[in-house]
């Protein structure tokens, strides 16, 4: 945890972790006995399905629980489907949970191998959106919002995490290949490789324009990369894709390269695991591995009232169950001891201005939070720049009243989103 310095009038400088030699040992997590996959969209037992309990699946096989939806998962293991059920995530998201018992003999599915002779967008869309690191292919070939720039970020967008930096350092060939494929399937020529601070040399041959991103938090936030590295400001409430810029993680690009090169869909996810005392360890595990299995392997013991976080300390999401699986976009796992958990409170804003000084996009948070606490979301959006928020979490990090400001902001955006979509639906 980063404490406030004695010299409180100086604006705190918080830096991303940089990859150092001590992070270079990767722990390979052995295959668990069973895995869980979460596929987007609720599970409706009535819908026609290609997947039943008792089916045997092969590694790399595409699993689509519903024939009516595009969502699918790639089976990371060979085994038997034991259950299919519905799972409710946060912010009103629903998933279909598929559990698979892992068998000893691993067999590889060959559907992708036959399909990948053609390097095209439909093939990639059909098999590769759930690659480790997640490949956002749905943005491409959208005639309303054409993508003209792809930014591959070779760092991580939270503190303590070094997953993507490791990929950039160790899998340069896959990355290079991935960039070529990305260029082929998306028809986007302008590909930028953004790399955090220090290691800029040695990427001349990678096939992308290399740019440097500062290491001070939150410089790696996509909105900040847009503003500071690309010099383009995303208007409040819009996404970078609206301006034709798509962000992809280095891990997904490397996985894309390796998929087309080997004819096999990569199913192992690299993650930074942060232990209770803040030590970082890179691990590689199959997607779908229950996180408790990773903690057991690393010898991290969890007790009652600890906190498990998927992602980093500033923007991650805590989960309530240690059976939660590794997802394609889980770049970090963090455990916090119950003694180390800072509490939040309902103490009022005292107007000290700490948040104002630290906010990277100059939101009048002292006013905003008063409206959000009272539930006046529309005024907050209209007058106090709710939609300018880039969700870095710094305001909550410094608030002396310990107001969960970031949570209020997420909640307000979610509620406004619901109101707006309801209005659209009912005219």
């Amino acid at each position, binding site marked *: *945890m*980063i*404490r*406030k310095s*004695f010299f*409180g*009038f*100086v604006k705190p400088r918080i830096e991303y972790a940089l990859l150092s030699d001590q992070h270079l040992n990767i722990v390979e997590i052995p295959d668990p006995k069973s895995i869980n996959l979460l596929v987007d969209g609720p599970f409706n037992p009535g819908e026609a399905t290609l997947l039943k309990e008792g089916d045997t699946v092969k590694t790399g096989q595409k699993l689509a629980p519903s024939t009516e939806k595009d969502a699918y998962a790639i089976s990371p293991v060979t085994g038997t489907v034991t259950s299919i059920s519905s799972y409710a995530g946060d912010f009103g998201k629903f998933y279909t949970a598929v559990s698979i018992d892992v068998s000893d003999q691993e067999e590889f599915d060959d559907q992708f191998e036959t399909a990948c002779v053609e390097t095209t967008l439909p093939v990639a869309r059909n098999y590769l959106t759930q690659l480790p690191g997640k490949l956002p292919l749905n943005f491409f070939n959208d005639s309303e919002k054409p993508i003209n720039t792809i930014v591959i970020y070779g760092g991580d967008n939270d*503190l303590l995490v070094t997953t993507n930096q490791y990929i950039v350092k160790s899998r340069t060939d896959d990355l290079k290949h991935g960039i070529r494929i990305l260029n082929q399937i998306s028809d986007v020529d302008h590909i930028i490789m953004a790399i955090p601070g220090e290691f800029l040399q040695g990427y001349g041959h990678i096939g992308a324009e290399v740019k440097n991103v500062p290491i001070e938090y939150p410089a790696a936030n996509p*909105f900040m990369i847009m*503003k500071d590295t690309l010099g383009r*400001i995303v*208007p*409040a*409430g819009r996404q970078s894709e609206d301006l034709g810029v798509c962000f992809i993680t280095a891990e997904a690009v490397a996985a894309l390269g390796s998929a087309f090169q080997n004819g096999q869909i990569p199913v192992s996810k690299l993650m930074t695991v942060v232990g209770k005392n803040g030590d970082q360890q890179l691990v590689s595990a199959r997607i779908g591995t229950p996180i*408790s299995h990773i903690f057991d392997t690393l010898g991290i013991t*969890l*007790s009652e*009232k600890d*906190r*498990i*976080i998927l992602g980093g*300390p*500033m*923007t*991650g999401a*805590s*989960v*309530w169950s240690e*059976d939660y699986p590794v997802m394609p976009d889980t770049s970090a796992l963090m455990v*916090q001891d*119950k003694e180390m*958990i*800072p509490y*939040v409170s309902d*103490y*009022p*804003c*005292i*107007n*000290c*201005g*700490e948040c*104002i000084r630290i906010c990277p*996009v*100059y*939101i*009048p948070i002292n006013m905003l939070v008063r409206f959000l606490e009272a539930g006046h979301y529309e005024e907050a959006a209209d007058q106090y720049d709710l939609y*300018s928020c880039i969700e870095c979490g*710094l305001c*909550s*990090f*410094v608030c*002396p*009243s*310990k107001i*969960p400001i*970031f*949570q209020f902001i*997420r909640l307000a955006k979610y509620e406004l989103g619901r109101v707006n979509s309801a209005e659209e639906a009912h005219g």
Partner: protein
Amino acid sequence: MDKAKKFIVSHAPFWHNGNSVNERYYHIMIAALPAVLLGIKQYGIPAVGVVALSVSSAILWELAMNYLTHRPITIADGNAALIGLLFAMAVPATMPWWAVLTGTFICVVIGKHIFGGIGSNAFNPVVLAVAMVMVSWKDLFDFDGALLNYDLDMVMAYPLAAVKHFGVGAIESFSTADLLLGRQSGGIGATFGLGLILGGIYLIIRGFIRWEISVSFLLGVFLTAWIFNLAAPDRFAGPTFHLLTGYTLIGAFFLATEDSSSPVNFIPMLIYGAAGGVLTVLIRNIGAHVDGVVYAILTINLVNPLLDKIRPKAVGKVV
């Protein structure tokens, strides 16, 4: 695997830098202590009595309001104690007990809780209370009368009253060193210039008050007093005198910087502070009152919400 294990689930961020409200108010009280201690040394047991009664009654008023409004008990956050301490610092050591009780009642109940509690008060509660007691019982704040029975080893005339009524000639006996070291009459904790400055610098370094407000307030006082002094040196005292007398220093470091009633953006803070400084000297030099700090701060508190509208445009804002 123990299925029954329960984990804490909450929203990001999962770190906090350790800032807290309590820390803030306790440190402000610590920073105020040197000035209070010198006051107690000078005025003895009556000063102890006023400080103790003021702090304790402020805490009790707060407790009473917590019960009355069915809110959580907040006396531990230090805000009520700080209010009590600052009120005691502003009053003479001979303040009668009922006036202290009334003063802290105005501070905590009227100044703070009626406006909605901590963070919602439009005016600095202490300044509001001092102003109300001052207009209600004028004699209580006539330092020359109030401290009549004290004969300490210094000039016992209240410097601001002396210069107001008798002109610059009357204050020749005050040296800058005397004023800095608290050898002047006045409020219990308002006279020890050096102590207040050191306390203020400590608070600024630790980030508990906003330096922009204090510095611009002092600059406002200095420049305005200087201009007056240049125009009529025989009628108006010099800038150093104005900086070190009356409530200037306690106002600049402890009163004008109160969080809720002051702005948080850079330019508004400068305007707010400077306006306070200018008004202080205007009231002292050409107004009816002996000291202008109290009314100057109330005035800038009043314009604070308007000032704070001057703010940088949020990134991505579409107008």
